[in-house]
């Protein structure tokens, strides 16, 4: 059974009286451990697809199955629980909480989960901060970091709770190529070591290069779905 399955997902937005279609019947299966890149021009529906998988948006029609369970029929409370337990987001503009330090920002998902003791949280956060190479910056605030460092914090925040799925919306858009390479390698490492599923929405060829699977969206439909034999296809 696939980890995630989208069946005939349609998403329309209303602009006054006018219906704007964002997704026009998407069928997609995502396996555990996928390192998947969704590409396509602006307005092709990439972000909408990510939002629907992340349960922060609801399709107009169709089903989204997670381990066989239909997510579209969940209540707001149940969706919040689903996100808390399974999903992490990485945003293009990092979206760190400006009044929290690096450590506190990374701690946040674990605190929201309410599953771990303070000591466990400290250990997990210390470890992930080391993985993203920010151990010297742990007590700094986001305003004291560079864009690349901020995105590393965002990645650490997304990965600290060992989610099954990480949804990354243009994670490298605001980074230079060296920093992007760096960030991707961190995510690849997580994917290989603990089989975290990564789903990217991106324009960045670098991300596409590293992806195991590339889906091209065009006008709200899947135009191609290419699976590479090796994670690092050249």
């Amino acid at each position, binding site marked *: 059974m696939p980890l995630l399955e989208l069946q005939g997902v349609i998403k329309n937005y209303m602009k006054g009286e006018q219906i704007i279609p964002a997704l026009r019947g998407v069928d997609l299966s995502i396996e555990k451990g996928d390192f998947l890149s969704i590409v396509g021009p602006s307005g092709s529906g990439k972000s909408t697809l990510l939002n629907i998988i992340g349960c922060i948006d609801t399709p107009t029609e169709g089903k989204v199955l997670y381990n066989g369970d239909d997510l579209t029929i969940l209540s707001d409370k149940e969706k919040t629980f689903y996100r808390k337990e399974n999903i992490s987001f990485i*945003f293009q503009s990092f979206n760190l909480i400006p009044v929290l330090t690096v450590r506190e920002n990374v701690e*946040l998902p674990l605190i*929201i989960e309410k599953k771990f003791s303070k000591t466990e949280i400290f250990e997990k956060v210390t470890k992930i901060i080391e993985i993203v190479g920010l151990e010297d910056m742990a007590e700094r605030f986001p305003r004291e970091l560079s864009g690349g460092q901020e995105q590393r914090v965002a990645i650490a925040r997304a990965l600290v709770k060992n989610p099954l799925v990480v949804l990354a919306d243009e994670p490298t858009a605001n980074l230079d190529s060296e920093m992007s390479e760096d960030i991707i390698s961190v995510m690849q490492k997580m994917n290989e070591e603990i089989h975290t599923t990564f789903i990217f929405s991106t324009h960045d060829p670098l991300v596409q290069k590293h992806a195991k699977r590339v889906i091209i969206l065009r006008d709200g439909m899947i135009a191609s779905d290419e699976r590479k034999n090796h994670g690092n296809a050249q």
Partner: protein
Amino acid sequence: METLSKIAWRNVRRNKRRTFLSALVISVGLSIYIMMNSVMTGMDRANIDSLIELSTSSIKISTKQYAEDKESLPLKYGIPNPDEVIAYIQDQEHVVGATPRTHFLGQLSNWEDTMPIIGQVVDIEKDRKVFNLDKYIIGEYFTGTEENEIMLGKDLADEMGVGAGEYITLYALTKYESRNADEFYIVGLLNTTDPSINLNTALISYQTANNFLDLENLVTEIDVAVDRRVNYSQFTKDVNELAQKIELEFPALQVITFEELASAFLGITEQKKAFGSIIMLIILAIAAVGIFNSVLMSVYERIREIGVLRAQGLKRKEIVTLFIWEGFFIGFLGSVMGVVLGCGANLYLVIKGIPLDKFVGFQNSGIPYWGTLYGEWNVGTIIFAFCFGLIVALAASYLPSRIASKMEVTKALRFV
């Protein structure tokens, strides 16, 4: 909870100017309320003191017949054995003094105009221990050397065009209801805080009245002063206990406390308190708008942040809690500032007071005090103000918090 309060506190600190302004509005509201309550309590105390010192005393005793017919101030219901009653009262605890008084109706004449007066016959020595007239006298108190001495209210004297050291004619019915008139030497004038004394009261001594009114030491009223160096509630308790004792000892007499005599005034005091509360409500409503605005601005500034927190699995009610915390911190700061500001200003009012006589025209305003009006500490009011400030802040932050919690995650994340 700890993390939510931490985020809220840091946001409150980050927007220092906005937080300060919102807290300032609350603090001004609370400090005005604390000061207003202090001044009003001080006014009440001064008013009650004034009433007791000038007209009601702590306890009034008369015969029951006199009490029923007191509007006409009859000279026929004298207290039997007044010296025995006074001697008993003076032996009791907390009693400062007891004095006889006899009221009568009369008219003053300057040969051109006549004016009706309420006459009061006083015991020159004992009266000073019960009523505090000395500080209001222009001229002198009774000397006892002149045969016909009289003291007049200042406004009454002004109306009649006479002053201390001059003579005036007094008409009255004697105890035997025969008319009498005589010329009196005005020994002093009374310029008190009670307009009715100033305008229509004339005082003569028992020595004079025995001749002029054929009084034969008839006493229609005994006034008692109780020690007022204790707080108001203790004073009231002492007065009521003493009144009960006197009633038990002299069941034929009517014993009335100042509270019963001044019930109308004390009713006004309650109205003033209600008025003060309305003023505070208005001020705090303005403060509530300030906090509402402040938290709402905070919500709109942090829409993306709300989206991120919701995407990470924070529940709607936790978003509400986050912004309620912000309201709480602003309210707490405002309440602390308000109490500090209010207590600081009140300290000045309690120690230095408000010099009412320096305000031009105040003496003629009809407000029955002059001199310095002092504030009073009221711990209950300060605690109430603090809690009320906090509650208003929490209530005002609830609606913006709900707005924040209702936001759609996708819209919040897209918000620029």
